[in-house]
């Protein structure tokens, strides 16, 4: 059982590393295709937005705490933008609102 767990882990660790490595290894030159360049420029914004909402609503114990964290996070990111400040503001919001909801 133990040997098979280590073997399984090794297989999956190598597989996931290859997914991450291959593009970085083979796309060494700057992409010149305008559409592809623009697409890659927009990727992080779309990806992170999709991952944030509505998932943030279900991350904590209550939808309302999540919604409050979202609003505070949006405001903090809009007016301050510092990563640590925004993340902590969201955490504190959940902490405070969890006593209400």
């Amino acid at each position, binding site marked *: 059982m133990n040997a098979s767990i280590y073997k399984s882990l090794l297989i999956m*660790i190598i597989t996931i590393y290859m*997914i991450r490595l291959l593009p970085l290894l083979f796309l060494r030159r700057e992409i010149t295709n305008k559409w592809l360049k*623009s697409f890659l420029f*927009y990727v992080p914004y779309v990806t992170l937005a999709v991952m944030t909402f509505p998932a943030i609503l279900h991350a904590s114990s209550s939808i309302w705490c999540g919604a409050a964290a979202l609003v505070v996070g949006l405001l903090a990111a809009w007016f301050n933008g510092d*990563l640590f400040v925004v993340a902590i503001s969201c955490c504190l*919001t959940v902490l405070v609102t969890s006593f209400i909801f």
Partner: protein
Amino acid sequence: MKETSKTMSGGAWFAKGLRDGIPICMGYFAVSFTLGIAAREVGMTWFQAFLMSLGMVASAGEFAALTLIASGAGAVEMIATTIIVNLRYLLMSTALSQKLKSDIPIIHRFLTAYCVTDEIFGLSVAVDGYLNPVYTYGITLVSVAGWTCGTALGVLVGNILPDWASNAMSVSLYGMFLAIIIPPARKNSFIGLLVALSMAVSFLFSLLPVLSSISSGFKVIILTLVIAGAAAWIRPVEEEKT
């Protein structure tokens, strides 16, 4: 600040990475606790779970790995599932490949590849101009410390964090995502529109009958391809700022 970021020394980038890694570390710690508890139920030792987190550094990917191990899946099934669940990293690595100087020593490509997680990618790709990978390593060092220790502790002691603490930390990662996407959205209204649209469609996907059964990993891939693809067609990026 934006002007000086291009002339920052390697040491300064590394230090900035360590600092920016702190909120990721907190979020990872909370999530990986749950992962450790799940690993314990599958019968893993703390060392095996630690190794899994050190080697894979992926939340959904590791939960899938646990399911596969528990069900005694074969090697082919393991490889196929790992590829499908983690396919979004292929897209992220592709985007990140354009942030590295083309003549950077190859060792940095091997090292940066290890660091591609949702959060670390988000920070690294948001840097102005070319990415100094030392920044990514700084973030990763702090983040992975939280990720691996959280997993191991989850196996050893179960959830020692009080509920209120893990509850509060659960939104840390989403706060970071907002800090990455909202400031550019404020400056560039097209990006703002894109962010709002992406969230709206993502919300729709979670409500509609058939679409809501799509796994979150696949949802990210499909929506990224469609929305970023359409955006690139509607509004091609004019000038490379680097």
